[in-house]
């Protein structure tokens, strides 16, 4: 039943939305004009804030997931604390990636004079979109990475307490998980690499 409803919704949303726009006499040209004239500095600021904000949320989430299990398990087996700090460090690294990319993105933002009608040139618009994209990519990738490392780190702490030979094996899983954050950083830097507000077209 649920599947039927979801399927109908998936098929019908687009035509219904267009019908709604037609019936409401929505002026699509004007809407596009409004969208085009949003300042690229808004998009850059949004991108940079998503980058830091989501990375920090991911890191924090991962740290509390691992930390609560680690503290509880360490009551009985205090030896696990030093090794399992690695999980916490992987989560923290995610936040650092976010800050680094945000700093890189921020250095790309330059002041540019707008045209007479208030719109910005092509280079500025492209740069704005690129910084938005780069920030988003990094942010979302780091959110997922932080969560993933956190959950695996929690299991690693509990398994290490039970059997100390397991830690290194689970660490391999964690390393793969933390690679996700690096993917986000790499793509973010590549996207922002070409962004320049003052490029000549």
């Amino acid at each position, binding site marked *: 039943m649920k599947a039927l409803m979801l399927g109908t919704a998936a098929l019908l949303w687009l035509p219904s939305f267009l019908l709604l726009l037609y019936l409401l006499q929505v002026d699509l040209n004007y809407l596009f004009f409004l969208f085009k004239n949003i300042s690229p500095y808004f998009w850059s600021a949004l991108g940079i804030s998503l980058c830091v904000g989501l990375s920090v949320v991911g890191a924090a989430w991962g740290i509390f*997931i691992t930390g609560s299990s680690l503290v509880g398990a360490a009551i009985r087996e205090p030896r696990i604390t030093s090794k399992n700090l690695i999980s916490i460090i992987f989560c923290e690294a995610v936040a650092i990636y976010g800050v680094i990319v945000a700093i890189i993105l921020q250095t790309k933002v330059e002041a540019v004079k707008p045209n007479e009608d208030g719109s910005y040139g092509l280079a500025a618009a492209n740069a704005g979109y690129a910084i938005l994209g780069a920030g988003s990519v990094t942010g979302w990738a780091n959110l997922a990475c932080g969560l993933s490392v956190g959950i695996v780190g*929690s299991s690693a702490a*509990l398994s290490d307490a039970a059997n100390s030979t397991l830690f290194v094996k689970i660490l391999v899983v964690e390393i793969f998980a933390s690679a996700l954050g690096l993917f986000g950083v790499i793509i973010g830097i590549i996207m922002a690499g070409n962004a320049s507000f003052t490029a000549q077209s």
Partner: protein
Amino acid sequence: MSFGEDTSEMCLFNVKDGFLEAVVRGYKLGLLSTADYNNLCQCETLEDIKLYLTGTDYGPYLANEASPMHTTTLVDCCTRKLVADWKYMRENAGEPMGRFLDYCTYGHMIDNVVLIVTGTLHERDVQELLDKCNPLGMFDAIASLAVAQNMRDLYRLVLVDTPLAPYFSENLTSEDLDEMNIEVMRNTLYKAYLDDFSSFVHGVGGTTGAVMGEMLSFEADRRALNITLNSIGTELTRDDRRKLYANFGLLYPHGQAELAVAEDFDQIRSVMEKCPPYQAIFSRLGLGESQMLDKILYEEEVRQLINTYEQQFHYGVFYAYMRLREQEIRNVMWIAECVAQDQKNRVQDGIVFTF
């Protein structure tokens, strides 16, 4: 479970309950292993047992006991450890884990109520009965159970303020207190408790619902089996017997309908063997043997309890810890009794190994 439910369980469980889950897994690491039991079986006296147990997690609780040791002191010290652990977890628990931990102890509460009522019927001293009660199932005003003359008083004076109140229905309170009715009361209360626990656990949902659902259905089936075995040849009618079975479990409803009319062990056995998981259990029982049934059921329960630790982010591990500790205390008591009575050759019969 859907993807969203699964993910949110993994991501959000540790907010409130992560610390205590790790703590209970630490406690579980301190349970006695097969090697410990083998060493305990080699002990010659109760002093040796005490000495050995002082080197395990029971150390702080046994260290200050004076010799000579009795089995009851040994068991009391071990129970004190379980109670201390449970209290720590209960006090630090959020919701709904606090309610879950309380639900785990209502079974003991029912046993305590029945113990005091039966003891009062046999003119025993209230204080002596209170000492014998299970400490996990104590509540305030438990001592005033001795005052009640019939079930209506029992309910009205004492039990209406306890968590057991909803398990009393109208037809139960109109009975007088005598031997037969007390057993029926115990089993009716326990049935209502199991139904309630099962619906609570499915309300919590997720992995907790799945894991606890399995364990509770095994418990319900086990009780149905024991009720049937114990009521063969008594005056309990088939309808009454049927009313004592819980409303869930692998045997519900068809297996229970057949169990209700079973009259001897072979009929019971043929009913149970229609259910594949129980067929595996009963196949380990030789033909005509019913003494080993208890031990085999305990072993099956322990196997299921250990399996709850395979998954993370659910409450089943707490219930499992309580049950495993109780099983361990039963094992220690058996070993201590065998040693005290110099019957070391029977010691292997009564131990259910955990790992």
